Structures are given as C-alpha cells and as structure tokens.
C-alpha cells in the first residue's frame, strides 16, 4: 500500500450515542485510497454502528466525517456541551470576581457561544446539504464539458446533455460509499429478481435506458462470478455464497470508491467464505476499491486487511498495520483478543491460554484520563501518561 496515497475517508472524534448508551465514543481514524481497513472487536463494541454512521444510516451525535474532503457527517452534541460547560464555568467563577473581571468573562463567553452556534449551524447545513454540494459540483462539470459542444449541437448530443445533467442533479455523494451486509438472506428483497435488486441503485440515480441497465447488470454478474441467466431469478434460488455475490454486485454497480463490508463472510460456510474473500480481493485489485472491512474473525481480518483498528465498548483502543498489530500488540484488550483466536492445531490449541481482560483491573484511569496516542509511527494505542511510558519501553 502506498503511504502517500490520498486520504479517502477521515473520521474525527465520531460519537454515536443512543440515549445513555455510548455505542461509539470518540473514534478517529483515516482510510487511505486503495487500502483495506479492518475493524475488529466483540459484538456490541460499536464496529457496525461506526460503519452505519459513515454511510449515514444514523445521524451522528458529534464529530466529523470527511469523504474525499467533503464533510458528509457532522454532529452537534460536542458544541452544545462546550457551550454548557462554558456557561457553568462562568457562573462559578463570576460569583467571586470583581465586576470588571466578570464583565470581561461575560464577553468571552458570549463570543464563544456565538462561535459555537455558528459551528452548529454549519454542521447542520453540511449534514443536510453535502449531497447538494456534490451535485452542484457535478452539474458544473457537466456544463463545462458540454459548453462547447452545445453551440452547434445535434439533437442526439442535446439529449445526451440533458441526460447527463439530470443524473448529475440527482447524484448523491453517499452513493460513492456502498455497503455489503452480513446476512445474505435478510439483505435481499425476496420479491425482487436479481436484475431488479442489482439495478435498483442505478435507476434511483436516474438511469432510464433499459439496455444500458441490463448491460451493466450482466457485466456485474459476470464480475462477481455469476452468469447472465441468473439475472431473472429470485434470491431464494441461490445458495448462501451466491447470494452474498449478489450483494457484492449490488454494491459495485454504483461504481463506489469505498465499500463498507459489514461481516460479509460471517454467515457463510468456511469453504464458501474463501470464495467470497477471494472475490473481494480480486475486485479490490481490479477496480481499485477501498474497503472498510468489519469482522470478528481475526484470521480473516488479518489475511485481508492492510491496517486494523481494534474497538472495545465504543472506543478505539489500538490501531496499527495488520502485521504490526499481530506481532506487537500493546493494549491488553488486543492481547486478550489475539489469545482467543482458535488455530488449526490440536496440540497448540490444548495448551493455548486465553488472556482475560478486565478494564477495571488493567487500567487506573481514576486520575489520569486516557487518550489515543501514537507509540511508533502508525501504531496508535489508547493510554494515559503512565501507560504511554510503559508501552514505549515495551516497543524498545
């Protein structure tokens, strides 16, 4: 993987709270163009929620998500909290301060509130209008392209222009991110034929020419290792592995740059798993896809990903390249996770000792709160000062 590649997706301090439940709590990472980023952790740790927040299935609580430099997700909770804290702070301090001091503080507070309110407004706007922005950009591009041609245009070109313009107006940035779901049975509508399932996205995006649609569908089917004849059938006529291939075809027909694969192989038999992983690997190389690969099977993640982030109860606790992570795990939770991987070797397995992880017992965060820090280049761990020193000495 190229280290200097452009950053495709950037997640900043992403928080997703469902009431009191902090499903994702202050998670930050970047995905470079062309890489596979693995996200692992036990069920309920927030990895799926992270994926769904990115594709905007949820409105995020706070934090920012940038895709190709455009802010597609923005939360306002952190700004609101900041205002509240500032107000509280002001109340406490102004009580026993001189009148001048108090007035100065009031002024500062007002300025801060105004700035944050502006931020909130902007975040709300971005959250709603990122697609419009993107469409505007595309429309401008189309107009620029056809400007000269239109001067002495034939009716065909005019029609083409109209078509392109319509599609550009309907374009959504979110379609550049596609998702492959875990359960190949539940994620396909049983009452739609494979053709309808795969083409749905194209039609919504504004494609009207049935010939083009069919051709595209056939192309996708062949790309994922199915045949043209399958287009007319219904999902129930396929085996689990084939259904997952349909799911993949549905995702890549939109020509996405980023695919979020949420446990794409967990529901499949081992032998079929290998087929689907090989397929994703081939597509990644052929189409230059970037993949956010969410899974709990560590052997698969290790095999497939370039970099891996480990999540624990909504927090990202460790992030490194996959070789580094498996060679030098630093965070005790990562160690515990790695010790749980079953390996195909009876003698080794009978001796394997699983390391238990107990957050309370392992860390003392009562005074010194942890943050996400870089220990060696590219290797991040959640730790506080004392642990930082410990990890550094472990690396050396």
């Amino acid at each position: 993987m190229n280290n200097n590649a452009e950053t495709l997706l950037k997640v900043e301090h992403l928080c997703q709270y469902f009431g009191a439940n902090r499903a994702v709590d202050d998670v930050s990472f970047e995905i470079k163009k062309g890489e596979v980023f693995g996200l692992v952790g036990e069920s309920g740790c927030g990895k799926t929620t992270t994926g769904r927040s990115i594709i905007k299935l949820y409105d995020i609580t706070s934090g920012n998500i940038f895709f190709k430099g455009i802010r597609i997700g923005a939360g306002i909770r952190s700004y609101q909290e900041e205002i509240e804290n500032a107000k509280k702070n002001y109340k406490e301090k102004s009580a026993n301060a001189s009148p001048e001091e108090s007035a100065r503080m009031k002024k500062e507070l007002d300025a801060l509130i105004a700035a944050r309110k502006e931020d909130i407004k902007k975040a709300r706007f971005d959250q709603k209008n990122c697609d419009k922005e993107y469409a505007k950009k595309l429309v401008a591009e189309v107009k620029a392209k056809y400007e000269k041609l239109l001067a002495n245009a034939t009716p065909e070109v005019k029609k083409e222009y109209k078509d392109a313009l319509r599609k550009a107006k309907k374009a959504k940035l979110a379609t550049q991110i596609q998702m492959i779901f875990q359960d190949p049975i539940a994620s396909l509508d049983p009452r739609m034929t494979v053709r309808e399932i795969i083409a749905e996205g194209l039609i919504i995006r504004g494609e009207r020419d049935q010939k083009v649609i069919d051709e595209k569908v056939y192309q996708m089917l062949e790309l994922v290792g199915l045949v043209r004849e399958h287009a007319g059938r219904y999902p129930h006529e396929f085996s689990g592995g084939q259904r997952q291939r349909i799911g993949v075809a549905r995702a890549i027909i939109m020509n996405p740059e980023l695919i979020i694969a949420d446990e794409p192989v967990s529901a499949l038999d081992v032998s079929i798993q290998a087929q689907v992983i090989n397929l994703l690997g081939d597509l990644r190389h052929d189409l230059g896809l970037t993949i956010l690969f969410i899974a709990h099977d560590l052997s698969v993640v290790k095999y497939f990903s370039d970099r891996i982030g480990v999540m624990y109860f909504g927090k990202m606790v460790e992030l490194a390249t996959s070789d580094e992570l498996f060679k030098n795990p630093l965070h005790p939770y990562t160690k515990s996770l790695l010790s749980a991987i079953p390996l195909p070797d009876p003698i080794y397995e009978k001796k394997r000792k699983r390391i238990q992880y107990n957050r309370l017992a392992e860390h003392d965060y009562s005074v010194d709160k942890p943050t996400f820090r870089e220990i060696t280049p590219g290797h991040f761990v959640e730790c506080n000062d004392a642990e930082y020193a410990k990890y550094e000495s472990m690396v050396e």
Partner: protein
Amino acid sequence: MENKLHVKNLTISFRTSNGKVQAVRGIDFDLAKGETLAIVGESGSGKSVTSKAILGILAGNSIVEGGEIIYDGKDLLKIPEDEFHKIRGDKIAMIFQDPMSSLNPIIKIGKQLTEAMLLKGKARQKESRATFNAYLKALNEAMIKALAKDDPAKAKALTKKCKDFDTFEYKHLDLETPYHNAYQAASDAVPEIKSILFEIEKNAFTDPMERIKQVKKLALDSINEWVVFGAKAGAVRVATETIVNDTKLAKKYGKWETVSKNLEIILGVLEEALTFDMPNFFSMGYYLTFSGEKEIPKLASVAELNAYLRKYLDDNFMLSFIADAKSAIAYSAEASYKEMLEAVICLKKYREVFEAEKLDKKTAYEAYQALAKEVMETVDPLNTVKDTMVYTFGTGLKTEVDKYFGAIVKNASETKRYAKQKAEYDRIVAKGKTPNGEVVPASITDLELVRTNILSQIDRMIEHFENLVAAKSSRDFEAETIALIDFLKANASGIVNKVTKSMAKAKAIKLMKEVGISNPRKRYNQYPFEFSGGMRQRIVIAIALAADPDILICDEPTTALDVTIQSQILELINKLKAERQLSIIFITHDLGVVANMADRIAVMYAGKIVEYGTSEDIFYRSAHPYTWALLSSMPDLDTNEKLDAIPGTPPNMIYPPVGDAFAARNKYAMQIDFERQPPMFKITDSHYAATWLLHPDAPKIDPPKTITDRIARMKERRVEEHE
C-alpha cells in the same frame, strides 16, 4: 471406555416436491462416555440431520430408511414417542445455533430455565422411585435365593436388612440437603464478596444495594450446623446486621470503610468454612436411625467424627450388608451365565430355521419370538450397566424378518410395475417418439442379503454370549457391589429431591452461575432481549444442562458469536464436559474451532462420513482431499497467498453422484472417483478415510503445500512459545 451411543448405518432422506433428497447415506460412529466427537462439514452435508435423528426431532417429511441409533439398550429410531419423552432433553440435550430463536422472547429467562425442571421433577421422582424399588427388590430376592433358600428366619433377616438400608438412606438425604444448600451459599458468597471488595478498592462501584443485600442473604443461608457454626456464626450475624444500613450511608457520604471491614469479616469466616471436611451423612443417617441416640457425639474434628461413625456403621450393618449383596450379585450373575449358555444352545438350534433356502413365515416368526424371549432372559437384574446387544437383539431381528417377508410382496409388485412401464416406454420408442422421463428401475430387495443379515445377527449374539461366559473369571464382584450401592444411593436422592418452585429457582441460579452469568439473581427475572448474544447462548446451555443429560449435542453453538465469546463458550463447554462426564457431539462447519474441543473428528460430505479419526489424525495426517480442501480454505494468521477456495457447490442430493460425491470439486479426482464409491480405507486403528487415493494402486499424492507448511509453522510456533 463405556460407549454411550452407537449409530449404525443410519440412512435418512427427505420427501420434497422435487424428489427424494438423500440427506444421510449410511453413516456409522460411536460415542464414548466423556468424549467429544466433532462432526464437520458444509451446510447440507447431513450433519444437522444426523443430530436431529438422534434427538428424534426430524422434520415431518423425513424418511428413516434404515440403520440404528442405540442408546441405553434402546434403538432410538424404533421406540415409541412416549418413551422418547424420557430421553429427549433429559438424557440427550441439544444446544442450537441461534440462541435468539431457541429462546422464547416473551417469557422471562427464569421461567424458561425452571419450566423443564418442574415438569421433569415429578416424572423423575416417580421413575427413580421405581428404579430404586426394583433394584432393591431384585437385590433382596437374590440375597434370599443365594443365602437362605430353606431358612425363613434368615430370609426375614435379609429382608429387614434391605428395609433398614432403605430407611436410613432417606434419613441421610434429609441431613445432607441442608448442608449442601449452606455450603453452596457460602461458596457463592465468597467470589461475590471478593468482587465487591475489589470494586470498592477501585472506587468503581455499581448497583451496591442489590448486591450487598444478596451477600447478606447468602451469608445468613450459609449458617448451618456443619458449615458455619458456633462463635463464627455469631460473628457473621453481627457483621451482616448493619451492613445494609451502612451501605446506604456509604453511598451518601462515600465512606466505605465500615462496609468493607464487615465484608472482610464475613469473607474470612466463609473462606475458612469452605476448607472444612464434609461430615459423612450416610453413616450419620444410620447412627441417628438405629443407635437410639438423639444427638451426634461431640468429637474434636470432623475427620474423627467421620471415622467413628463409619466404624459404627460398618460394624453394625455395612460390612455384613456388603457381604450379603456380594453373594447375591455373584448368585445372580451365575444364574445369568446359566441362562446365557442355554440361550446359546437355543440360538444355535433356531439358526437352522433361517438357514433354509426359503423361509416359512410361521416358523420364522415363532423362532424369532422364542429367541427374543430366550435372549431377554439372560438379563441380570442386578447389573447396572445395560448390555445393549441383548436389548436390541429382539427388535433388530424382528426388523430383518419383517423386511424379508415385506420384500417378498414388494419385489413382486415392483417387478410388475417395471414390466408395465418398460412396455409402455418401448411402445413409445417403437413409434419413433421421445418418451418424457426415464423408466425408474425396479427396486428389488435382495432376499439372500436379508437372510445373511439375520444369520450374522444370530452369530454375533452367540459370539457375544460366548465371550461373556469366557470372561466370567475376570469379574470383580467387590467393585460391582460398591457400584450397585452407589447406584441405589443416586436413585434414592432422586426420590427425596422433590422439585418445588423455590428449589427449581435455586438450581436455576446455580446453573446460571455455573455457565458464567454474573448477577444471576437479577438476570433471572429478565427477558431474552436483555441479554447479549454470548449470554443468551450461556442461557441455552444452562437450559440444556438443567436435566443433567448424558449426551449434549451442540449444533454450531458458536457460529453466531464473535471470537472472544466463542472462545469463552468453548471453554465453558469443555469445563462442563470434564465436570459432568458429558459425551458431546459437536457439529460445526469450521474445522478451526474443533482443534481444541474434539477428541475425535468425523468429516462429512454429501451425507457420508469421508474421514474419521482422532483430532491429531485429522489435523496432522489427513488423507481425504475434502479434508485437505477444508483445511486449506481457511486463512490462518500467517496466510498471505490467495486462499484455496473449494470451487463449485455441494452436489444436489436428489440425484447423488454415482461415484465419490466430492469428485466434481476435487482436483485430485481420478477416473474411478466418477464411477465407483470408495470404501472406507483403514489407515491406522483410529483413522479411516473414504478415498480411492488410499488404494494400493493409486498414485501417491501428498497433501497440499498450504497444509504441510502450516503444520511445520505451527510446530515452530509451539516450540517457540514453549521455550
């Protein structure tokens, strides 16, 4: 090792609208006590169907075409549904794949856990009483026959002995139950107190009131004459008196010193109490019943007391009872041997009936009845380990005889049908048209084969009896007597242990703890949706264990769970297996998870077992290409190359392939693989595989490089981590 379950030549198919799907095609395996057998295969390979057949929950459209599943001397495929009720869930339990769908979403966990206990409790009580009474009666009769044939006074004395045993047996259970409850409460309280103390120390205390109240209750429950007693009991009482109030204050002001001080006092007492010896309640029961004393003598230590009581029991009752029981068992065994010799003569006599070229219906059935009766008479009523061969002989023989006479009728009609259809077919062909569809060949049962089966069954029985008689001198009646008395004790506890709602709750909570659910008292009243996936699976395991089964079938228990939870659940299953001597059938598609679990592994493909061996055999010396494919298609932590996926999909089992079912997806397939099915080749005593590659004439093919590399790599890793 004692075999728990035999599966012989099991064949199952399903009627569907498209034709008959052959799900299981003649598989054989057996399962020993305390062993884990893993059945590995892709979906549709018939592994789940096998497990469902064992549990008698096959779908309505299934046809059991043949075979036997023998458990406890019964063929589970042939026993009536009423009898199956006593086995299903009670002796053979199952854990399903998806914990969400195997729990009822609208019933509280506690109710789901105790439901079966309450229902089975009554039935079990009746059953154990019947067993206990039957064995005691048989023992009494055998004693009289052996020792007091013509002496009514002696006979009376022996009957009284049995009755005395019965009486003080009850008394002992009355004494033992409260002790166990108190001991359990103490051992539950210790880890709970430790965890509370830990949390107080870390200043991260959640839900204190509830847990403190619980600890208080457990501590008070553990105060018992034999567990926590005397001055220590007083100390515990004092420590618990104000603890709830203190917690309230501590919560308000954040001062936990008093609470933790009291907790430490309780912890100290309980930890000490748990190290004490358990009194011998069995002899205590006798002492209190027959010595005329109302109190247990005060002695310095429990060990001394045990020795004293034991001596008292032995001198006055036990030694003579054991001696009598031993002679009774020897007598009964001798009688059984005599019956066996007679049965052998009888078997040899009636064998001639079946040797005839053509069997006569009347004489054949008469012979079957005489033989079944004669063989059943050899059963020794005092033997607690049932001889499966004797019990299945009758049903097995009847099936074969039925098959023989049924086939005579069926063969005729089949031949007729074939002739008719063939004529029709030929007529259409002769007209120059293409007929739609083929003529289904007549399915003719080979009568000769059935007859040979009958004969070999009889021969096996004769051989079995002769072996038993020859091994007569090696029997240890001393050990058998002790085993019988233990068996009686176990059944007696079944009679006494009435299951009330509160007892079921206590047991459920104990089980929840055993399967690793923290705070079970609170969890008991929650609904399934309040549990995470791993916790739900633990509940399912607890429900399966509630009836104390012998055999646990785990149908992909961890497929829906993630790595850490999977590893926890597997550890739990392993722990329970060791503690309860469970036999486990572990069904999975992932060879990776069974390395740690399985003693033996059977790899299934398209309804057949293709390879069978110990877990080392399969992982280090696998011989079947399908096993190779399974092993090499999963990535491990060092895999970098493209995965060796198995191309294609499993065959359609409506039209199973003629040759080796795996041939079409097998890169090592030879011509013969497409033509004939390979037999099971024996590699070592424990390792078998069905592939033509093992035939002496086949070319020598090494396992794929992925596998050999991995074995080498894992060896290095083992050495590395060992040092």
